[in-house]
């Protein structure tokens, strides 16, 4: 199982052809208290960088983009009533949706954890 990150601060954990998507701990901290996640509908097909769903926090309303192309096969229904799980565990229990990845090749466009760490350091400097 491997995890990749996007420049927009989504992560995707890949197991075979299934990708679990969420927002990074950094993104969750930046957004502040998350108040609502507009979950995508199951079966929705997306191209890379298309809007997967929306997320609202006390500070902003933001879009979450698909890190790679694919079809939504599962959503984290816990977030409907307890969106704060994202603040508590952005890269664990706070996952948002699972997709069936259309092409594993697209993962090449993403960053590995070390690269993402470096990317965040550069952002902060």
């Amino acid at each position, binding site marked *: 199982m491997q995890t990749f990150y996007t420049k927009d601060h989504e992560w995707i954990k890949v197991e075979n052809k299934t990708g679990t998507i969420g927002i990074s701990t950094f993104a969750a901290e930046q957004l502040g208290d998350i108040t*609502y996640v*507009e979950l995508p*509908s199951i079966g929705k097909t997306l191209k890379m960088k298309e809007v997967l769903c*929306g997320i*609202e926090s006390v500070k902003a*309303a933001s*879009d979450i983009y698909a890190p790679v192309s694919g079809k939504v096969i599962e959503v984290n229904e816990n977030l409907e009533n307890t969106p704060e799980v994202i603040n508590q565990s952005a890269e664990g229990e706070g996952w948002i949706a699972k997709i069936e990845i259309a092409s594993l090749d697209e993962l090449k466009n993403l960053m590995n954890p070390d690269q993402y760490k470096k990317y965040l350091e550069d952002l902060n400097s």
Partner: protein
Amino acid sequence: MKYTPHTETEIKEMLADIGVSSVSELFKDIPESLRTRFFDIPKPFSEYEIIEHFQKIGKKNKTDLLLFTGGGYYDHYIPSAVDALSSRAEFYTAYTPYQPEAAQGTLQSLYEYQTAVCAITGMDAANASLYDGGTGVAEAVLMSFRLTNRNKVIIDGSLNPIYKKILHTYLDNLDFTIIEIPHQNYGTNREKIASLIDDDTASIVVQNPNFFGTIDDFQDIADMIHEKGGLLIQTVYPLSLGMLKTPGETGADITVGDGQSLGNPLSFGGPYFGFIAVKIKHIRQLPGRIVGETEDKNGKRAFVLTLQAREQHIKRHKATSNICSNQNLIALRGLFYLSLIGKKGFQVVASQNYQKAHFTLTELLKIKGVSLKNKNPFFNEFVLELPKNASETVEKMLSKGIAAGIPLSLYTPEDKNALLVSVTEKRTKEEIMKLAETMGEVLWN
């Protein structure tokens, strides 16, 4: 002093900046025939002259007609306190309540308005109002498209024709489909609706009482559409809810209506207000402003605009709708009206409308050749078949000071002799007898 928004030099600079040679080139996308060539404005008037001028025009209006016209807008009694309260400067001049620290009064009044709308409709959540009943229907339909990710709506043919027109204006040039099911003897054609609901149907729009006065229980239609994953949109005449089953009880997902009948005068067509209320699970897609209750830092009850992330100033082009205003003052009159008449009064008014309309029908049916055309149960409005042309009969009665109803031929030209008559609590027995007597005379003398 002349009002000069831009000097010639400024205009030239701006045009040069965007690479356009003249003002007429700037507007070249607007067809020539639609462009204004000159403004035919009369010479200036003094204050005295302008008052005289408008009073003269105003006198052309007939304001003392005995009204039996309805069709969605009714002549109800308005308690004087509604005018007194709504003309207080605190309400009259208030506008956008985006700063809760400065607008607690406005926010609280809207919160109470929303609560009143939920109370009479039996729904969970309402917004702070829309422009009118027709735009309410259109917003409800758009909402159903967003909620279901589908793009087809079925509308009952007995929906108010004005609402239908507004809905078409909203949707016709977009990628949506409206299917209208013609009414069946002035009622809803259930078989036809059942045969047309499919997995692409976002919603069904029904009206109670419908445009022809028919009252109905749409529970079965709610079940039908829910089974296919769609939504029921029900538009209602709010005052009838003092007597009829609420949309909440029926199983409607979204309820809309025109609030004119609640404390607002007919005023030759407006301003009115629209209300919209939904089941709580749909609140994130509810358009417009919503006021919510919260606590301030000292734990005191306070009010704020809530769920603002749906709105235009935050979500831009992704907003749930581009309605960023509402009908505050007019909607507040609705709240004042409901508060003043109270729960019991609300039921009494509805009951009086019902009783007086049924009495009127009995009297009108005594006229030779007049029959009841819509045989369905009704609230305060019914369709008659006259022995003669309805438009001509109405015209003749107008000259005798009575607006006897709406000729249906205005909407369906083949219904030449059909007349839609409505009766409110304001009509006295004498007035009703005068209607019957005058109609008899006009038809047969």
